């Protein structure tokens, strides 16, 4: 049984005039214990919404209209808010996008880690909690003595590591890392990745990595889910995604990254922008930007279903489905 199994999750955002915008539609993903999944896609394609949705932390305007989030076989969407509070952080924790913002500027790093420990009764006295906070900081390579400092006294990379330490406070089984390396320079990115990789192996974490960075996914994740405009475009093992992509969007996305073997080749860009949520194309969401030579009339009219074209390789594309 997978530790995290999201089935047909759909999230709407309600505008002020009561119009529902379909931010995420029928998204399914599955993470095995101790494995990792990469969630990639352009900004605004619903990656963070999916993660917030499965933790039930959507903003007020967000509605989960459909689907199941099975954690260890039990549906999180059926839980009460109080039960949910126990699951969050204790079982599924999250490294938030932008470390500076995720830390309260007027409280020490230590006190913010201690808060999680005490709230979940991992330890019950302050002394032990502080000791554990120190251990967690050491685990991510920050001297325990620096726990009594404030976020502004940390460097960017340290803050990110502190946020990771915080996420690990309650020994979660699933860790969601939402763009853990944005706004960090390449060296620090590499450090953070190494850290995540090490922690994942040591603590047997199931890791969901939300990112723009395909290189990071290639390095770390067993499976990759490519999202476009709120739906899944392609879902397969990272080996397949990088070596045999079938969805035109995945193909273009990969062409947009430099290839070490062909340093002289020019990088392709995908003309156009992702669809606006209030103006989604009726057919395939990628159709307006798709330059695939086999594009046909049906692409503009009917949304392609996610089809398993070979074991473990799902694609939402009329053309790719026909090729099987």
């Amino acid at each position, binding site marked *: 049984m997978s530790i995290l199994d999201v089935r047909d999750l759909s999230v709407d955002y309600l505008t002020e005039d009561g119009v529902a915008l379909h931010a995420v539609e029928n998204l399914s993903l599955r993470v095995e214990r101790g494995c990792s999944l990469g969630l990639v896609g352009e900004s605004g394609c619903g990656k963070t919404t999916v993660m917030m949705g499965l933790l039930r932390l959507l903003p007020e305007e967000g509605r989960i209209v459909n689907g199941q989030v099975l954690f260890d076989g039990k549906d999180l969407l059926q839980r009460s808010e109080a039960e949910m509070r126990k699951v969050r952080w204790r079982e599924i924790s999250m490294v*938030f996008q932008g470390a500076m913002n995720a830390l309260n500027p007027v409280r020490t790093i230590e006190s913010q880690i201690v808060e999680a420990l005490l709230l979940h009764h991992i330890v019950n006295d302050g002394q032990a909690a502080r000791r554990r906070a120190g251990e967690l900081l050491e685990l991510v390579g920050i001297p325990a003595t620096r726990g009594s400092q404030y976020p502004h006294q940390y460097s960017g990379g340290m803050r990110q590591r502190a946020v990771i330490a915080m996420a690990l406070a309650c020994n979660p089984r699933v860790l969601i890392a939402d763009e853990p390396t944005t706004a960090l320079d390449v060296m620090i990115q590499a450090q953070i990745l190494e850290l995540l990789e090490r922690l994942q192996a040591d603590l047997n974490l199931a890791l969901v990595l939300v990112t723009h960075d395909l290189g990071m996914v290639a390095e770390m994740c067993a499976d990759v889910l490519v999202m476009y405009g709120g739906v899944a475009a392609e879902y397969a093992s990272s080996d397949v995604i990088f070596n045999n992509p079938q969805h035109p969007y995945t193909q273009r996305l990969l062409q947009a990254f430099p290839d070490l073997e062909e340093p002289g080749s020019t990088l392709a860009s995908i003309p156009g922008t992702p669809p606006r949520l209030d103006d989604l194309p009726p057919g395939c969401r990628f159709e307006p930007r798709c330059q695939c030579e086999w594009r046909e009339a049906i692409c503009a009219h009917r949304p392609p279903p996610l089809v398993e074209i070979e074991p473990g390789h799902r694609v939402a594309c009329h053309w790719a489905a026909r090729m099987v």
Partner: protein
Amino acid sequence: MGVIGALMLLLVVSVAVFAPWVAPYDPYERVQVTPEQILTPPDPQHLLGRDDAGKDVLSQLIYGSRVSLTVGFTASFMAMVIGTTVGLVAGYFGGRIGNVLMRVVDFLMVIPELPLMLVIIAVMGRGLLNIILVIGLLGWTYTARLVRSQVLSVKERQFVLRARSVGASSVRIMTRHIFPQVLPLVIAQAVLDISVAILAESTLAFLGLGDPTLVSWGNMLNFAFERGMSRRAWWFLLPPGFAIVWVSLSLVLIGNTLDEIVNPRLRTHHLFDPRRMIAPTLAVRPAQEREATEPT
């Protein structure tokens, strides 16, 4: 400026605390006076003269500071607590709860405060406690608005979301994560509120609604005014007025400085430093030019 204000306030507070030692006479003591002893101008025994009952004005002034400060501090503390709570709840929960609370605030804000206080005190009686309650219960609206507006922005920050996902309850998020962010503003506002409360107390007393059993600055003004002393005995009228100004000024100086410290945007921008100004300001334009442009 803040330091000057603090020193000014310190002086008043220490005088109020040590009133029995500082004051030359006890204003609550019954005195037997002869007609020659009333309303005497200042002399070495009575530095600020005597009032219409033959009592020492300086001693009354000193004891009066106790009432003013008590009312000022307790009422503004009350206002601070109520205002912060309402502001936090209204800002954090928003929606219907927030709307209802803010309409209550609007409602209290549009009612002219002074007449309302007068009516309430007239009905409830003129005790010190009633005066404190009235000032405190009517003075929290601005703090509530201020706190709410801050909370609205702070609660959208990501650490609040993180705290929620850690499992913190709403109360915990409000008290531990959001409150510390708005506290500096609240304190600055509370200091300014003290002077408002002191002024309100003096106004009530001046209008004859102060606690009649206590010597307060407002009461002194009231007696002096009612007995038509403004022309005849300045030493009876001026000192309490001056004392009120002194305390209010000191608090405003402190409050503004605190405000500037906690709200750096209020500090003048370096480009507005007069030494760096390139364009001449209105004030330094030549006189003829000003006359030419301004209608007479």
